[in-house]
């Protein structure tokens, strides 16, 4: 249940995370943008300059996919340490532990929102402009992504204290997902006979939706439906795992 105290609790925890992770919020903002931009630069050099991919506006194409991806990847990458890094709190205080992974996802979500102006800037550079559909498209896709990311983070953060190898598995998994999702290449380049596999990748429909929204201002109902289904399923699974194991966290940390 969301009470006034719960909201205050989440706000204070989020402020704490920001301070602990970046020491200062200005620097935090800088890194949250510099990181995906650096990635974009690397892929631009590798694929556009060296391998000469035949695509217009490749830089813009890259960042519209990388920014949302970065939110998901950052949250999932730190989630193995969410409970371990707050061991003293989990061992010594009785509070709703699911707040900790929630705060992680929230924090990266805030950074994502703050990075949207950079996307707008790039659009102007490429003589494009934001469209009105962003007004509803961005909140919808953010909701979907929030739920999906929270689900994954609940699983990873809950299981890792019991099974520390989770950490390494997760970073490998994230890397696989990154290259198997059309982020640095368009889905149209995926060979015809593998295309159906795209819909089996839970994040692909979501990432494609983000890019379409940013580049063309469109939100495909089919892709959105698939994304929502994956996101609800992921969250349900994550919450079930959390419910089952969370009471043991104070014992194993």
């Amino acid at each position: 249940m969301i009470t006034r105290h719960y909201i205050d609790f989440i706000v204070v925890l989020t402020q704490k995370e920001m301070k602990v992770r970046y020491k200062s919020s200005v620097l935090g903002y800088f890194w949250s943008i510099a990181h995906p931009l650096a990635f974009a630069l690397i892929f631009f050099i590798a694929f556009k300059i060296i391998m000469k991919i035949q695509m217009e506006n490749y830089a813009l194409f890259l960042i519209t996919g990388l920014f949302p991806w970065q939110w998901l990847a950052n949250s999932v990458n730190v989630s193995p340490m969410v409970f371990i890094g707050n061991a003293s709190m989990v061992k010594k205080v009785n509070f709703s532990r699911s707040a900790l992974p929630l705060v992680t996802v929230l924090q990266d979500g805030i950074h994502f929102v703050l990075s949207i102006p950079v996307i707008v800037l790039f659009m102007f550079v490429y003589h494009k402009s934001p469209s009105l559909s962003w007004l509803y498209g961005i909140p919808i896709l953010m909701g979907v992504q929030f739920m999906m990311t929270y689900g994954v983070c609940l699983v990873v953060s809950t299981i890792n204290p019991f099974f520390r190898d989770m950490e390494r598995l997760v970073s490998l998994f994230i890397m696989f997902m990154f290259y198997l999702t059309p982020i640095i290449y368009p889905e149209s380049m995926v060979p015809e006979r593998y295309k159906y596999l795209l819909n089996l990748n839970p994040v692909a429909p979501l990432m494609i939706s983000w890019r379409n929204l940013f580049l063309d201002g469109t939100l495909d109902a089919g892709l959105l439906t698939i994304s929502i289904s994956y996101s609800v399923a992921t969250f349900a699974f994550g919450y079930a795992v959390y419910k089952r194991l969370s009471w043991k966290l104070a014992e194993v940390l």
Partner: protein
Amino acid sequence: MSEPAVIFDNISKSYPMYHHFTGGIKNFLFHLPKALKSLRGSRYEALRDISFEVRKGEALGIIGKNGAGKSTTLGLIAGVLKPTKGSIVVRGRTLPLLELGGGFHPELTGRENIMLNGVLLGLLRAEVRKKMDEIIEFSGISEFMDQPIRTYSSGMLARLGFSVIAHLDPEILLIDEILAVGDLEFQQKCIEKMMDFKRNDVTIVFVSHSMGAVEMLCDRVVWIDDNAIRMSGNTKEVVKEFEKAERNAELLRYVKGNL
């Protein structure tokens, strides 16, 4: 006689030995049946068939050697741990905190930690803000409030932690070992504050190795030895027996050492 605030009825608590688990994925997969069995088996029984009650407004002391199971008992009352066997009844707002400074973050300043701790223990942000100056004043270390607390001494940390607790309004207060690191002035302040709580009908469960403090504060004492209750009842009697046992154990060690 007032009604009980906490009831332990034949409570046992065992901890699984998870270390088998941390051998890595390779070990885990290669010895899957064994690994799974070790998850079930090999448990350490930290508390065995513990029964006691704490009445409302009473101060109960829990004493015993290191590793006896005192903190585990507090963890069960606070709801941080779940009993393996038996059920625990807790009536009233318990401070959900086992140890002073639980949830403090070393990188945050004293002030930020007061906010974090206060909200963690159930206050709204506005309430913490309102009490902030009072809390800082009470701690007696106001000049360090804007330093990260990793630079604090352990006594200063205890001061900060207790100052937050002192400004909350619990019905049941759990206190584990706070006097150990504080200086005399601070110990005095703590005892006074706890007497204050007592006068206001707050139920207190007090874990300490300081028999002086236990005798001053507690109405009754439970002595836990080897993970079970060895004796409970009147403070003076239990403390006397406990000290006798300690002295005997020491004598025995001394005699053995000289053989």
